[in-house]
């Protein structure tokens, strides 16, 4: 064990190889950050001046009457939070029913879940567009949230079902003979066992909502962009002259919360990839 942990001579070629392979990535990230606070003459890769001008979007709208990045961040936050809450609360109840309750149509729902899980849901976008239009939810954040939730649910339910499946039946049998009704058993005895899955799903679907791009783009393409992802796309699509340094600055602004969340909740997120086997 000891021998394996300390990098000895035999490992150096390996490490050198990895460094060489990942160097381009590191350089890219480095420039991503450097470019947001410097000016670089066209054709050069060496910056010639320091500026905070690329961060001007934080101070106010980029163009007269354009959206403020803060209100977009707010929208994105609402979008991601609602998605996470609805996905998690529906998954956590639906998965219990699919895992434990002997209800009619259980096989059908389970089959449907697997099909939807594997199905490229984005191909449904035209049908979804028509339905939203019909319901009057087209071009609203509510509409996008509903669609996003629907697309995320198969994954969420599947994950939570995995966690429920690993809770021993005897716990519930003991609860019922102890005099608790099924709902109390679920709330007081089973839910605490799947709590790691719950937390992971909450974070995961929040991140998924935060980075969603296609759905707001297609389903809520109002004059003003609605979320950060579409705002970001707008910056390079907008003009004949695209401001890449501005684009990079906004990207960092957009990515920071994701990075923070990953760093804080790394361990919890790993639970999902464990498939709930250890609960």
């Amino acid at each position: 064990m000891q021998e394996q942990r300390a990098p000895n001579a035999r490992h150096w070629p390996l490490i050198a190889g990895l460094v060489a392979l990942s160097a381009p990535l590191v350089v890219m990230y480095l420039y991503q950050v450097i470019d947001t606070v410097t000016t670089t003459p066209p054709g050069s890769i060496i910056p010639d001046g320091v500026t905070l001008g690329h961060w001007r979007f934080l101070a106010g709208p980029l163009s007269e009457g354009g959206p403020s990045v803060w209100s977009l961040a707010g929208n994105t936050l609402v979008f991601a939070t609602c998605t996470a809450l609805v996905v998690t609360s529906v998954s956590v109840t639906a998965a219990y029913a699919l895992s434990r309750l002997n209800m009619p149509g259980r096989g059908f729902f389970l089959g449907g879940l697997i099909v939807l899980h594997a199905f490229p849901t984005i191909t449904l976008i035209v049908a979804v567009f028509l339905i939203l239009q019909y319901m009057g939810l087209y071009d609203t954040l509510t509409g996008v949230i509903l669609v996003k939730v629907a697309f995320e649910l198969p994954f969420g339910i599947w994950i939570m079902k995995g966690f429920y499946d690993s809770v021993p039946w005897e716990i519930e049998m003991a609860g019922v003979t102890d005099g608790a009704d099924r709902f109390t058993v679920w709330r007081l005895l089973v839910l605490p066992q799947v709590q790691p899955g719950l937390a992971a799903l909450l974070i995961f679907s929040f991140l998924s909502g935060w980075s969603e791009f296609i759905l707001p783009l297609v389903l809520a393409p109002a004059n003003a962009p609605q979320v950060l992802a579409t705002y970001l796309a707008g910056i390079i699509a907008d003009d004949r002259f695209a401001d890449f340094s501005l684009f990079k600055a906004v990207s960092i602004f957009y990515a920071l919360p994701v990075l923070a969340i990953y760093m804080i909740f790394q361990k919890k997120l790993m639970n999902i990839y464990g498939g709930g086997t250890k609960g």
Partner: protein
Amino acid sequence: MRLVLDGFTKRFGDTTVIDALDLTVEDGEMIALLGPSGCGKSTTLFAIAGLHRVDGGRILFGERDVAQVSAQERNVGIVFQNYALYPHMTVAQNIAFPLRVRGASVADMDRKVREIAGLVQIGELLERKPAQLSGGQQQRVALARALVRKPDVLLLDEPLANLDAKLRMEMRSEIRRVQLETGITAILVTHDQVEAMSMCDRIALMKAGGIVQIAEPAEMYDNPADRYVAGFLGNPPIAFLDAVSDDILRLAGGAALGAAGTLQGLGPIALGVRPEHYGPGKGVPLDGTVIMLETHGREDLFEVELAGGGRLRAILPAGSGVRPGTTVDWGIDMTRVFAFSPEGRRL
């Protein structure tokens, strides 16, 4: 409280697992449901608890038929094989759970939890989580949780199966002590005959969804109802010999055993001989060769191949000096032999 199963029937889909089973457990009695794997012991237990729907017959707690009553309203305490403690709760919270869902006051819960924890001797573990307990301690917690609400019936589903041999012996007498002290009616499910014989007032021996014999342990051992019961009880197990009974009784290999007595003229039968009833200087000597020796410490177990065919087991105090390969002329104590018809009926 007296518990009666009257024509209890249970099916899973099309297969009938338990067919019209009758069983009475007297008030304060502890009875063992003993039988091989898959014979329906757990199914019966879960039906009594209300965890399985009943497909026929009555289940009486005292005078009340609870066959259609939900598990929550039955007041049954169960101890599961894997204990099924609630892992996120402390020992105290685990034990208090049945009281909590009944809306007991905090003071009341606290008092009862302490009382029952004292009874099963886990008073100093109350603040621990189940994961911080040994198997035996978890067992005691499960027992306390089952008992704290003063159930009408206590059900134990193979409670000792997960414990090591030494702890199993300790918990055997512990569970029995607690059951006697509380005077609660109890059913113990087990496939371990030693457990059943040492802990219970009576044993109900099951086979393929039915009860073959109900009796006190000693009575069942000394007077088995059929060949199956005789073969199930006893460790090391009984040995069977083919025999023929006309005017005298002789083994299938030809050796005469003596007068046939009440068995006269029955033709081919089987004799069941327990290891302790075969050995040097017991009844008619039979020629045989020792083919196997197992040392059990205090005593030795021998397997003997008889000259005329058939094998017998003998158990002798250690130090007899008999080695495998020795020819012996040990005999069978004919007064203690069971006779069975070819179909396994007791004769």
